[in-house]
């Protein structure tokens, strides 16, 4: 695992090194600085979350109980630098289904990446965590009603296309 991580890191480094040695160093520093600030903000606003920075990844874990009588959701955010944050529910185990906006790998589809793509300027505590809290509310309601009651991009369009094709 460690070796693999190192190799991955090396490739990233090489791709940047090709441009400028100085730039690579700077990016690394930026990532560290950015993630330290992010870690601070997440833990400040959501004391139930714990974050760590590991090999250019910011990992945040916390538990959200949407309401009394509902499940407690263990959340893991895996945010690699220059990439997009991936959000997983580690417990309870949920079978991925696009009906409740969960990709095949189990990560949540919290935003429309075409209309409003992820940007490094966006902060986890203002976006990903509140949106995950919303996701949990809608998922709990989905379990009762079988309907996704939140706003959804594409969803309806997809459904229509699917229906048209099965006719």
């Amino acid at each position: 695992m460690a070796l693999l991580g190192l190799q991955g890191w090396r490739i990233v480094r090489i791709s940047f090194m090709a441009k400028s040695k100085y730039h690579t160093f700077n990016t690394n520093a930026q990532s560290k600085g950015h993630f330290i600030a992010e870690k601070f903000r997440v833990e400040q606003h959501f004391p139930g979350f714990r974050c760590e920075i590991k090999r250019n990844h910011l990992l945040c874990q916390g538990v959200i109980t949407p309401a009394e009588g509902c499940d407690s959701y263990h959340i893991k955010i895996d945010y690699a630098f220059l990439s997009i944050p991936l959000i997983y529910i580690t417990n309870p185990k949920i079978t991925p289904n696009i009906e409740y906006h969960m990709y095949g790998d189990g990560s949540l589809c919290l935003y429309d990446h075409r209309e409003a793509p992820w940007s490094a300027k966006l902060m986890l505590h203002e976006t990903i965590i509140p949106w995950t809290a919303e996701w949990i509310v809608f998922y709990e309601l989905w379990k009762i009603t079988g309907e996704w009651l939140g706003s959804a991009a594409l969803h309806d369009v997809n459904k229509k296309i699917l229906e048209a094709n099965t006719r």
Partner: protein
Amino acid sequence: MLSTRRVVLDDIIESLDVPISAYEAAEKRYMDIGDWLNDAMKAKCASFSPHVFTQGSFRLGTVTRPWKREDYDLDLACKLQEGITKLTSTQEELKVLVGADLEKYRQERGIQEELEEKHRCWRLYYQDDLQFHMDIVPAIPEATDQRRVLSERMIESGTEAVLARDVAEHAMAVTDDRHPKYAVITLNWQVGNQEGYALWFESRMRQAQKFLEEKMAKVDDLPAYRWKTPLQRCIQILKRHRDMMFEDDPDGKPISAIITTLAARSYNGESDLESALSTIIENMDSFVNPSKPRVPNPVNPHEDFADKWPLDTKLERNFWSWLEQLKNDFASLNQSDNVQLITETALGKFGAKIDESKIQKIGVLLPKAVAINSGAARTTSNGTIGTTGVENRPHKFYG
């Protein structure tokens, strides 16, 4: 929009709906009778091209699970399509002809219970996986000029001409042993047109365009009981409420024909059960005429489904008190802050046991969902949606 009541109504439907297998069992029953009656080696009816088909709630797809009893009412017609007319036979002769065959059928199938004669039909009990009592109405096609009169009457009372003609095509002449000319030749038989009524009912269901478009591609290929439209659901709920309210006075209860007709007339194409039921309950009374016919049969406007009201004033009183009670109970289901009232009403008035914790959960989660969708949500420091904390930014779930 989701409401606690909507979820409760879905649970009520689940508790009173009958499985598709019940419809299939019914189908098997009447197909068997139909096949038997068409067998010239066995049945006298066979030479008159008998056609056996469902009527009533099995035809309309509005059957409710029987309340506190086991057997289903299965209404059937046995139409002799050729060779018998009002000029050649009396009502009595037709009734006896069909009855004799059904008696033979009963013996061949080893049905223990006696064949029972009713005013307009024969009743046959049948039991295998499910218990049925089948009311079989002997009939012949209505004469052409009579059909034309029916069609004209329907058009006069506001039915579209195409539908009126289609519907009138199915009109039948039926027997009734209370008829003064039951045993003599007469052209003046009673009219029965349950198949036409079903077509009219389907036209009312088809108002749910949005529902039908989303639900299925080819409604036309499916029997009505597979449509499961909001109108059918509403009628199931209304009938269950009535059955429970008049549990101790079954003869005094508002009849299904009245409930179904008023509900179908009131229905306005709503695509979800709750708003459909809301519209129906609110408007049903406006379709009861102040004078005769009080509740006209939509496919035979001179026939009054409420013709017994003047004979027994209790019946009309019961109808109005039922509607009043229904309004109250429907409102009670909407008291989302009173979980106990909701579960008690669902159980006591609609016979459905509702999971209390589920209702409680919806009561807490729904306001959160509403806040999120209206842009008013915040996320508290423990990560729950509330009114304090980080403001939730607008976004769309993708996928």
